[in-house]
């Protein structure tokens, strides 16, 4: 993907010039940001409010993914396992969290034409959607994928060809997104979301598996990785991942145990969803007043 096998090899690949694969990645990132921006404009044109903070979250999320895939971190990642792990934290943990908090599905439900929005809402509510969005499935896909990648020896195999490389990156980002969404159960509508204690238990188990994996990588370097670099990478994975893990815990607990607006406050609020008092941190807090949020998001999307 990064053209490390391409002409010129090292020095020619650095600098402002992107290889073909990198142009493709940059185009995908730009398209994702532009599509979200178009959705926000469409919602504004209809006269509905959309928090600007979410657009910022979405943009930052793709910037993190871009930093992992295109920048100097990505360039070093081929030689330096610590840089590779920094890329993992950015692409597989931080970027997915930011993207989930941007609530892209809610935006799509509101911005899309009515039939498409209805189809999307039906898809979300379908039984088929319950399987991949279950926290256990998502945890196995994301953390289990890492176990296959490093101790499983897939890392050496996947980093040999550009397509394998691209597939691993896509899987890391997608499964990270699925995991963050499944554990937080929002802010997008999540009709199949299990109860908070279940999601908390899966989150704790997944964090534990991530920690154990980091220490395993430290003790037993993956095939083809220099032991010294493997240890540095393991520490990046462990300590670099911790802030994201704690953020997930805070967001889950805030929606579960945190104070809630009194029920009477909601219908009395003119001007749509969300009380003005909750605008600050709560714009980032998923899963609050769960059922009504899910329902109103679906209704708004289908009915506007």
């Amino acid at each position: 993907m990064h053209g490390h096998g391409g002409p010129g090899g090292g020095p020619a690949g650095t600098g402002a010039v992107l290889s073909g694969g990198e142009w493709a990645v940059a185009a995908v990132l730009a398209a994702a940001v532009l599509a979200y921006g178009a959705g926000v404009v469409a919602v504004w044109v209809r006269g509905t409010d959309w928090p600007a903070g979410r657009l910022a979250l979405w943009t930052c999320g793709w910037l993190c993914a871009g930093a992992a895939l295109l920048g100097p971190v990505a360039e070093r990642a081929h030689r330096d396992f610590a840089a590779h792990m920094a890329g993992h934290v950015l692409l597989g943990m931080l970027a997915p969290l930011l993207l989930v908090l941007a609530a892209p599905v809610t935006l799509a439900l509101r911005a899309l034409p009515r039939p498409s929005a209805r189809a999307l809402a039906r898809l979300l509510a379908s039984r088929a959607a319950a399987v991949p969005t279950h926290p256990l499935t998502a945890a196995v896909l994301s953390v289990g994928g890492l176990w296959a990648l490093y101790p499983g020896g897939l890392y050496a195999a996947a980093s040999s060809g550009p397509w394998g490389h691209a597939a691993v990156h896509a899987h890391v980002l997608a499964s990270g997104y699925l995991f963050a969404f499944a554990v937080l159960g929002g802010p997008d509508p999540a009709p199949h979301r299990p109860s908070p204690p279940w999601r908390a238990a899966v989150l704790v188990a997944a964090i534990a598996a991530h920690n154990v994996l980091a220490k395993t990588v430290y003790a037993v370097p993956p095939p083809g990785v220099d032991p010294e670099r493997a240890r540095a990478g393991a520490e990046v994975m462990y300590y670099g991942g911790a802030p994201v893990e704690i953020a997930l815990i805070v967001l889950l607990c805030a929606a579960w145990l945190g104070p809630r607006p009194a029920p009477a406050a909601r219908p009395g609020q003119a001007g749509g969803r969300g009380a003005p008092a909750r605008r600050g941190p709560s714009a980032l807090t998923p899963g609050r007043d769960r059922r009504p949020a899910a329902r109103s998001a679906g209704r708004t999307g289908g009915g506007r």
Partner: protein
Amino acid sequence: MARARSGPGPAAPPGEVSGYDRRGRNLAAGVLLGLGTVAFLDEAVFHQLLHWHHFYDRSTTAVGLVSDGLFHAFSWFATVAGFFLVAALHRERAFWAGAFASGWLTGAGFFQLYDGLVQHKLMGLHQIRYGVDLLPYDLVWNAIAALLLLAGIVGWVLTGRARAAARRSGASPARRAG
């Protein structure tokens, strides 16, 4: 804890908080924060400041890695959840310092005793320190743990009595113990 939020929320009057036990919630918040505090002290002081423990200890077994990882993850979760519970209790004017302290002492003492006896001695996952005579370290560690746990259990019993007495007289237990 799971049912903690099924009630109408912060609007509930102090004393009877939406039909579930305020002492139980204060104890739970204390236990969670007690666990988290000891785990945090262990990690920050002994691991990162004194370097008595290490990121990876060559003697660590596979079981040790899993139990370590699980406890690390759970202690972070317990800390955050404990803070949110305390915040919610304050907001509902249902915070009861006595019950919270009992829970805190119990959680802290239990974790430290578990760590000192089961993880250090029974499973031999890791020791407090390496290259020194362990006996004084083990004695101090476990004695402190036992005292914390004992104090917590005493508080647990006392707050239970306070609640029972308050129920008989129809008053709010928090008023007396606050």
